[in-house]
C-alpha cells in the first residue's frame, strides 16, 4: 500500500517533468490539418514533414552543426586544459602555486552576466565578434573544472607517482599515463557538463553573434519563434532537434552521473 502511494507520487512528478516534452514531441509530428491547440498526445496522422519544413524556413541543420562544433571543442578543451592545470596545482611543487590557485578560485566568483558587456569589448578588440571562436573561448577552460580536477588529482596516492619518477617518467608522462586514466569519473562529469553548458548557452551567443549563418541552435530557435510563431509545429520540431541529442547523451552517461548518488543511497 505504501509502495503504491510512493509510485503514484513518483508517476505524478514524472508526468509533470516530462509531460511538456512529450506534448512538444506530439506537436512536432502533427500534420497541417490537425489542431495543435488540443491536448492531444497522439497525432492522428503522424508525419516527419515538419522536420523537413523547419529546415526550409531556417537553416536548422547548420545551426545544429554550429552548436555541435562549439560543444565538441568545449568538451576537448575543458577535459584537457582543465586537467593539465588541475594536475599542476595538485601534483607539482613550484613557486607561485598558491597564486595560480587564487586566480582560478576568484574566476569562479565572477558572475558571467556582470562581465558580459566588457567581454564583448574584449572579443571586438581581438577582432573575433561574430565568430564561433568567440562563442567557444570564454568557457573553453572553466575555472570550476580546473578545481574539480585538482581535487580529483589530490585524492590519488603519492606512492604510484613516486615509483614512476624512479622509473624516469617525466611530468607529462605521469600526467597522461597515470593521473589522467585514474580520474575518468570526474572527466566524464566535466565532459557531460561542458557539452550541456555549451549546447544550452543562450545569452553569450545572443550577444556575440549577429550573422544568421553562424547562429547556434539556441539563438536560431529563439529567432525561429520570433518569426514563425504562427506555425507551432515547426517550432516544436526545432526544439526536439535541440533537445534530443542531449537526452540521448545523458541516457548514455547517466549511470556514471547517478552512480555516486545511488551508491550512497543504498549504503545510507
Amino acid at each position: 500500500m505504501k509502495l503504491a502511494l510512493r509510485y503514484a507520487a513518483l508517476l505524478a512528478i514524472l508526468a509533470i517533468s516530462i509531460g511538456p516534452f512529450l506534448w512538444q514531441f506530439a506537436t512536432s509530428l502533427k500534420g497541417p490539418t490537425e489542431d495543435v491547440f488540443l491536448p492531444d498526445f497522439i497525432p492522428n496522422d503522424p508525419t516527419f514533414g515538419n522536420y523537413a519544413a523547419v529546415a526550409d524556413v531556417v537553416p536548422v541543420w547548420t545551426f545544429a552543426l554550429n552548436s555541435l562544433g562549439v560543444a565538441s571543442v568545449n568538451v576537448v578543451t575543458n577535459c584537457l586544459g582543465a586537467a593539465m592545470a588541475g594536475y599542476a596545482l595538485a601534483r607539482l611543487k613550484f613557486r607561485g602555486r598558491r597564486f595560480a590557485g587564487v586566480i582560478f578560485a576568484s574566476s569562479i566568483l565572477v558572475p558571467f552576466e556582470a562581465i558580459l558587456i566588457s567581454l564583448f569589448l574584449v572579443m571586438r578588440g581581438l577582432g573575433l565578434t561574430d565568430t564561433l571562436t568567440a562563442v567557444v573561448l570564454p568557457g573553453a577552460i572553466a575555472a570550476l573544472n580546473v578545481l574539480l580536477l585538482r581535487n580529483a588529482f589530490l585524492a590519488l596516492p603519492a606512492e604510484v607517482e613516486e615509483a614512476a619518477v624512479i622509473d624516469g617518467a617525466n611530468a607529462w608522462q605521469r600526467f597522461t599515463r597515470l593521473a589522467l586514466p585514474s580520474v575518468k569519473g570526474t572527466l566524464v562529469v566535466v565532459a557531460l557538463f561542458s557539452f550541456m553548458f555549451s549546447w544550452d548557452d543562450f545569452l553569450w551567443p545572443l550577444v556575440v553573434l549577429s550573422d544568421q549563418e553562424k547562429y547556434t541552435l539556441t539563438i536560431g530557435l529563439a529567432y525561429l519563434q520570433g518569426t514563425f510563431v504562427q506555425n507551432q509545429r515547426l517550432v516544436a520540431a526545432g526544439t526536439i532537434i535541440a533537445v534530443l541529442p542531449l537526452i540521448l547523451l545523458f541516457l548514455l552517461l547517466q549511470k556514471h552521473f547517478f552512480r555516486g548518488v545511488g551508491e550512497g543511497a543504498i549504503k545510507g
Partner: protein
Amino acid sequence: MTHRPYTPWLFLAPGLAICLMFTIFPFVNMIVLAFTDASALGGGRFTGVDNFVRMAEDPKFWLAARNSALYMIGVVPPLVLLPLLIAMLAQKVVPGIGIFRTAFFTPVIASAVVVGLIWTWLLDSRGLVNNVVEALGGTRIGFLTDSTLLLISSMVVTVWRGLGYYMVIYLAALANVPKDLHEAAMVDGAGPIRRFWSVTVPSLRPTMVLVAALSAVNGFRVFSEIYLLSGGTGGPGGASTTMVLLIQSVGRGLTGEVGYASALSFVLFVILLGLLLVTLKLNRREEQL
C-alpha cells in the same frame, strides 16, 4: 626536483590564459568602465560617480532591480522545499527508480531556450493550460501579456526546470543522513511527518542553506526565461524587465552605452557577492551551533 622549473607553467598556461583574458581582465575593465562615459565606439572620459547618480534617478533601473529581487524571493522557497520532497521520494531504491531519477533530471538537461519555448506555447492565450482553464469553466488568462503574470509564469518555469537539479544535490545529502537517527525516532514513536521535521530537516540544514544560496543567486540573475516568455521584449512596455535584461539592452549594439552598462554590471556583481557572503555567514553560524 622531479620536473624542470617551467614545467608547471606549461601545464597551467592554457587555463591561466583563458581565465585572465576572458574573466579577470574583463572584470577589472568592467569596474574601470563603470566610472567612464564609454560608448559602443570606444573611448570614454572619467566621469566619477555620474553613472551611479544616473542609476539612482533611472526608473528603469529600480524597476529591473525590483523585478530581479521579486524573482529571487519568489523562486527560493519552492526551490528549497519541493526538490527536497522529490528527493525523499526518489531516495528509496525501488524497481525502476533510475528511470524516474533520469526523467526528473530531463528539464535540467534541456536548454533554457527549449524549456522557454515549450512553456511559451503551453501558457499562450490559446495554449494547453488555458484550454484546461476554460474546460474547467474559467476564462482565459493572459499569462504572457500581463507584466505581473509574466513574472510569475517565468518563476514557475524556473522552479520547474530547477526541480531535478536541486533534487540531485539533496539526494547526495540524504545519503549521508545517519540511518540510526531515523530508527531511534521511530522507536520513540515519531510518525513520518514528525521525523521529517525533527530528523531530516535538522541534518539537511546546511544543504538547504546551500540550495537557498544557489537558487537566490540564479534567481537574481534570471535572463532566458523572461526573455523568451516575453518574446525578447521584457514584458508589456518592458515592465517585466530584470537586471540582466537591462544590462543587455543598455550595453549592446551600435548605440550601446558601455559605461552605464558597466555601472549596472558592477551593481549586479556587488548584490550577487553580498548574497553569497550572507549565506556563507549563515552556514558558519550553523556550524558553530
